[in-house]
C-alpha cells in the first residue's frame, strides 16, 4: 500500500519550533519512503514519480523557508531532522526502519537539503540515489557534486562530536582542568566579551544558543560559562528555548521535555559543579527570555540543593523556574513603558502575569505533581511571606517553598539583567546587595541565606579588587569560604592587563589573600581596553 503522507501544505505549521521539526520529520520520512518505492517502479520522468517529488518539495518547503536547510541524518537507530530526534511511534516505526535501511545501503549518514532545491535537482539526485549498488558513500557524494546537484547532498558521516581540526574547536574542558585563556581570545573558551567567533563558541553545546554573544544587560564584561558547566548551560538555554518557543497559547506544554532540560543542571548542583557560572552569560537581546528563565532555574536549583531538596523536587523546581514567567506572554502586548513609568493600566496588566501564568499552565498540561508545583510557582512568585505582593490571595494563602525559592532567584536574576538605565550598570555584587538590603524584608531569611551560599559574596562575573591591588574576575563561588571565591586575575597590581598564560588563577583564593572590595561598573575595563590588551 502506498503511504499517504499529509502534504505539508495542508498543515504548514502544526506547531512552532521543535514540534514542527518532529511533525515535518515524520512527514518527510514517509514521503521519502514513498518516493523511493515509486522510484523503483517508474522512470524519473514518469508523472507518477514527478508527483512524488512535488509532494516531497511540499513537505520540505516550510522547513526550508524557516531554517534554510533540512538535514535528515541517522545516528545509530535514530533519525534526526535538523538536530531534533524524530519520535518513534508504533505507527511510524516502519518508515523509520525503511529510511535507516536506505541510508545504510548507500553507506551514508543522511541527506542535507538546502533552500533552493527544485524538482530538476531532486530528479537528478534520485536518479543517483536509486542506484545504491553504483553510488554509495563518497562515490555518491562525488557523483552529486559532479552533476551540479548543489542543494541536495548526502552526508557521509554524522557525529555529535565536533570536528577536531581546523575549526578552533574548544574541547569542553572540565571545570577543574580548565586552562586560562586570553581574555579576548575570539575562538577560545574564555568568552571574554564577544565569544561567538566562527567555529569557536558556536561549535559547542547544543544549538547556536547563548554561549558567547554580546555582554548582557547589567553584566559588564559578561562571560560565558566554562567546561561542563558551560555545556550544561548552553544545553539548558537551548532546551528552555525549545520548551518556551514550541509552546503557544494553544499548544500543550512539553513538560516531559522540560524535565530533560533541567536534568544536567540538577546533576551539576549535586556534583558541586558551580552551575551558577551560567549567570554570567546573558547574551543578545533575543535570547533574553531563555537566558533569564535558565538563569532563574540555575539559581533556584542551586538554592534548592542547599535547602536539601531531593532530585525529583529539584527537577520540578527547575521546570517551575523555567516556566515561572510564562504568563508574561499574555500581557506583554499591553505594556509599552519601562517599569518605572508604568501607567496604572500597565501596572495592572503586569500584576496579572502570575495569574495568567498559572492559568496557562493549567490549560496546557494535565494536572499532576509537577504541573501543580509549576502552577503554584507561577502564581506565587510575586507574593511575599508577609502577605504583600501580587496577586492578592483570598484568605490565608501561604507561599509554597518552591515559590519562595523561585521568587528570590527571579528577583536576583532580574536585577542582574534589569532593562532600566541603572540596571545596565549594576554589578552582580550590587544586585546581591539590593537583595540583602532594601529588599530583605520581602524574602524568607532562609532563602536569602541559600542565595548567598549559592552565588557567594561576589557572584560569578563580578570584578573584584584584591588585597595586593590586582583586579580579578570571579569565576565561581567558594562554598567553604564565601569571601574567597575562585578568581582569575586579569589586571596585575601594577595595572598590567594579563592575557594568555600570564593570567593568574586562584581556585579558590588562598587564605593569605583576600578581596578588598567589589568593583563598580564604572571601574570595569572597557571593551577598548580589552581589545588593546588582546
Amino acid at each position, binding site marked *: 500500500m502506498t503511504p499517504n503522507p499529509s502534504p505539508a501544505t495542508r498543515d504548514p505549521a502544526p506547531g512552532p*519550533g521543535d514540534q*514542527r521539526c518532529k511533525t515535518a520529520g515524520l512527514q518527510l520520512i514517509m514521503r521519502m519512503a514513498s518516493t523511493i518505492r515509486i522510484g523503483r517502479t517508474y522512470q524519473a520522468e514518469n508523472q507518477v514519480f514527478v508527483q512524488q517529488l512535488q509532494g516531497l518539495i511540499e513537505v520540505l518547503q516550510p522547513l526550508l523557508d524557516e*531554517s*534554510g*536547510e533540512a538535514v535528515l*541524518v541517522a545516528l545509530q537507530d535514530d533519525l*534526526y531532522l535538523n538536530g531534533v*530526534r524524530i519520535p518513534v511511534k508504533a505507527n511510524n516505526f516502519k518508515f523509520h526502519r525503511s529510511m535507516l535501511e536506505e541510508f545504510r545501503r548507500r553507506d551514508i*549518514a543522511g541527506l*542535507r537539503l538546502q533552500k533552493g532545491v527544485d524538482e530538476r535537482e531532486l530528479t537528478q539526485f534520485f536518479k543517483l540515489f536509486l542506484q545504491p549498488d553504483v553510488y554509495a558513500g*563518497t562515490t555518491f*557524494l562525488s557523483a552529486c*557534486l559532479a552533476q551540479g546537484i548543489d542543494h541536495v547532498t548526502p*552526508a*557521509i*558521516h554524522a*557525529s555529535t*562530536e*565536533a570536528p*577536531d*581540526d581546523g*575549526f578552533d574547536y574548544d574541547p569542553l574542558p572540565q571545570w577543574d582542568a580548565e586552562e586560562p585563556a586570553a581574555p579576548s581570545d575570539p575562538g577560545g573558551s574564555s568568552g571574554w566579551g564577544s565569544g561567538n567567533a566562527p567555529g569557536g563558541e*558556536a561549535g559547542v553545546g547544543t544549538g547556536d544558543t547563548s554561549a558567547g554573544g554580546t555582554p548582557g544587560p547589567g553584566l559588564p564584561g559578561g562571560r560565558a560559562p566554562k567546561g561542563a558547566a558551560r555545556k550544561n548551560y548552553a544545553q539548558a538555554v537551548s532546551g528552555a*528555548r*525549545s520548551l518556551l*518557543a514550541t*509552546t503557544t*497559547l494553544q499548544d500543550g506544554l512539553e513538560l*516531559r521535555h522540560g524535565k530533560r532540560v533541567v536534568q544536567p543542571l540538577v546533576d551539576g548542583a549535586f556534583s558541586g559543579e558551580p552551575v551558577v557560572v551560567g549567570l554570567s552569560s546573558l547574551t543578545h537581546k*533575543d535570547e533574553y527570555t531563555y537566558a533569564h528563565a535558565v538563569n532563574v532555574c540555575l539559581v533556584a536549583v542551586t538554592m534548592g540543593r542547599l535547602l536539601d531538596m531531593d*532530585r525529583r523536587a529539584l*527537577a520540578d523546581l527547575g521546570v517551575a523556574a523555567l516556566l515561572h*514567567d*510564562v504568563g508574561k*506572554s499574555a500581557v*506583554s*502586548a499591553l505594556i509599552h513603558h519601562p*517599569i518605572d513609568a508604568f501607567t496604572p493600566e500597565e501596572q495592572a496588566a*503586569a500584576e496579572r502575569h502570575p495569574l495568567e501564568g*498559572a*492559568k496557562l499552565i493549567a490549560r496546557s498540561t494535565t494536572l499532576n505533581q509537577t504541573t*501543580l*508545583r509549576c502552577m503554584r510557582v507561577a502564581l506565587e512568585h510575586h507574593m511575599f511571606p508577609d502577605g504583600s505582593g501580587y*496577586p492578592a490571595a*483570598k*484568605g490565608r494563602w501561604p507561599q*509554597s517553598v518552591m515559590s519562595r525559592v523561585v521568587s528570590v532567584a527571579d528577583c536576583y536574576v532580574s536585577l542582574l539583567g534589569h*532593562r532600566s538605565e541603572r*540596571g545596565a550598570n549594576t554589578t552582580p555584587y550590587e544586585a546581591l546587595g*539590593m537583595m*540583602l*538590603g*532594601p529588599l*530583605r524584608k520581602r524574602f*524568607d*531569611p*532562609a*532563602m536569602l541565606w541559600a542565595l*548567598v551560599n549559592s552565588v557567594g*559574596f561576589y557572584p560569578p562575573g563580578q570584578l573584584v579588587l584584591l588585597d595586593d591591588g590586582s583586579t580579578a574576575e570571579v569565576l565561581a563561588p567558594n562554598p567553604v569560604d564565601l569571601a574567597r571565591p575562585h578568581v582569575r586575575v586579569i589586571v596585575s597590581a601594577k595595572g598590567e592587563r594579563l592575557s594568555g598564560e600570564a593570567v593568574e588563577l586562584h581556585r579558590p583564593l588562598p587564605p593569605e589573600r583576600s578581596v578588598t572590595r567589589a568593583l563598580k561598573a564604572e571601574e570595569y575595563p572597557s571593551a577598548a581596553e580589552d581589545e588593546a590588551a588582546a
Partner: protein
Amino acid sequence: MSTGFSPIRHPSFRDLTPAGMAAHEWFRQLARALKTCRLYHADNPVVLQVRQQLLEPLMHAIETYGALSFRITAAEIFLLDEAVVRPAQQTDGDDAPTGKESMLPFLFYRDGIRGLSFLPALPARDLDALFDALLAASSGVDTHDDLVTLMWQANTTHVLIDSVPIEQTIYLSSRRPTGGGGGGSHQGQSYVWSPAGDEIRADIGQMSGAAAGLHKDTFDDWVMPAETTPVEAAYQKLLPAIEFARMRLSTEWVGERSTDWTLQAPDVLRQVVAMSPGPDTTTLLARSTANWLVGAIQRSSWNEAQETLELLREFDPDGSLTQAELTTGISGLDAQSITERLDESETDDQARFFALTVSLGRPALDLACSVMAIATKGRTRAAACTMLCYLCNDEPELLEPYVLDSRWYVARNAAFVLGQIGTDAVVPLLELASRHPETRVRRQVVASLGGVSAQRRTPILLAQLDTRDPQLLAAALKMLTREKDRDVAQTILRLIEAPDFESRNEDNQRALFAALAEVADDTVVPALEALLHKGGWFARRTLQRLAAARTLQRLGTDKALAALEAGLSARSDVVRSAALEAMSARMNP
C-alpha cells in the same frame, strides 16, 4: 552505521548461551511481573511476591556472568550479539514462543533508551526503581515523565541506562573519521561541514516569528531599589536568625512534600478562580479538572477520581462546560487495562468505579460499555450492566451507537441492557439491533423484548421468523405464542405456505406449526385443511401434512376437528393416515 535491525531469523531460544538464556528468562519474568503489577494494588501480596522474585535470578546471573549490558533496538534486546528478547514469532523448532516480554524493547526504545546495564552488587532499591519506572511508563497514563526521567530521578547506581537526547547538535562530514573522535578530514571536497561551520540545529522560535511561543518577556517585573548594601555586612546581620529560619523552612518543606498533590490541587484551583473570577477562568479550570479526572480514571484511582468529579461539579455544576472534553478524554482511555484491573479488583473497588461512572453520566457511557464488553469476570459484567442501566434508564437512546456497533458482543450487551431497562422506550433501539447481522445479537434482542408490551414487540419478533437459526426462531416463537393473536397466526401461516418452507430444517418446520397451534383460531383451519389434503391422489407422506393434521388436532375447535374427521374419510391413504395419527394423539396425549 548499524541500523540495529537484524533481518536474519533468530535461532531458537534453546540455542542461547547460558548467560543469554538467563537473561531471556529474566526478561520474561520481568514482563509477567509488570503485567501482574498492573492488575493489582501495590500492597497486594501477589505484587510484593513477584517483585521480590525478580531480584534473585538477576543477582544470580550477575554473580555468575558478571555485569550484564544489554543493547536495545526497537524490537529486540541483545546481550552481546544474542537477541534475548525479540519480536513474537514462531521459529523453526522453537518450543518457546515469545510472550509479553516482546513489548519490552519498544517500551525502552520509545523513550530513547538504547542501552541497559546491571552492575554487580545490585541493590534491591535500584531494581525497584527500574521496575517502578517501567510500570509507570507502560501504564498508559500521561505522567509527563519518560523512562529516562524516571530513572534519572531514581538516581540508580547499579542500573545504568544509555539514552539518546531529545535534541542535539549534529556535525556532518563528507568523509568518515580517520580514527577516533567525531571529526575527520574534509579536504578536497567542496562540501564540508554545514554552512557557517557550526551545526545543523535550526534557530527555532526566533526565526519563526517572535509571536510564536511563550517567550515574550518584554518588561521588568521587579522594581530596582535605589540603594544597595555591602553584602558581607548584610549577610552577617542575617546570620543570627538563619538557624531558626532554616528549621522552620525545613519543617514546612517536609509538610509540603509529604502532602499528596491531589489534596493540594483543589485549593490551588479554587484560589485561582477566586483571584480571577469570570467565565473564562471557570471554563479553563473546569477543563483542566476534567483532564485530571480522566487521568485519575486511567490510573484506576477511584477515590481520587470521585473527589475530582466533585471539584469539577463546583466549576461546572451542570456539566455543560466539560461534557465534550470528558467524553473525548474518557473514550480515549485504555479500557483494556482498566477492565483487567477491575476484573481483579475487590468488590469495594468495583463499586467505587461503578458509582463514579454513574455520577459521571453520559461521558462515561463509552467506558462502561467497553468494560462490559471486555470484562472476563461475571461479576464485573453484571456490575457494568447495572451501571449502564442506571446511566441509560432515562435516555435509552444513548445506547444507539452501541446497538449498531460492528462488534457483536458490544451490540449484544447493549441489547441486554435495553432488556433490563425494559420499557417501550427501548423498542426502537431493539428494532435496530434486530437487524444486526450477528445471530447472537438478534437472540439477545428477542430475549430483551420480554419486558416490552406485546403490541410493540410483536412486529420485531415476526421479522425474526425468517431466520434459519433454530434457537432464535424458538425464542421468537416462544415469545409470540404467549397469547393468541390472529395476525401472528396469519404470518406464521404465510411462512408455512411459502414455497421455500420445505427448505427449512424439520425442527424449524415443526416449531412453526407448533406455534401456529398456540396462537391460531378457526380462521386458519381452511388453510391447514388444504395442507392436509395437498397433493390429492398423488399426496405423499410429508412432515407438513402430518404437522397440519397435528395442528388441527391441537387447535381442538369444532371446526378444526371436523376438518380432521374429514381427513379420516379422504380418498388418499396418506391423508387418512395423517388424520388418524393426529386423532390418536388426541386420544393418547
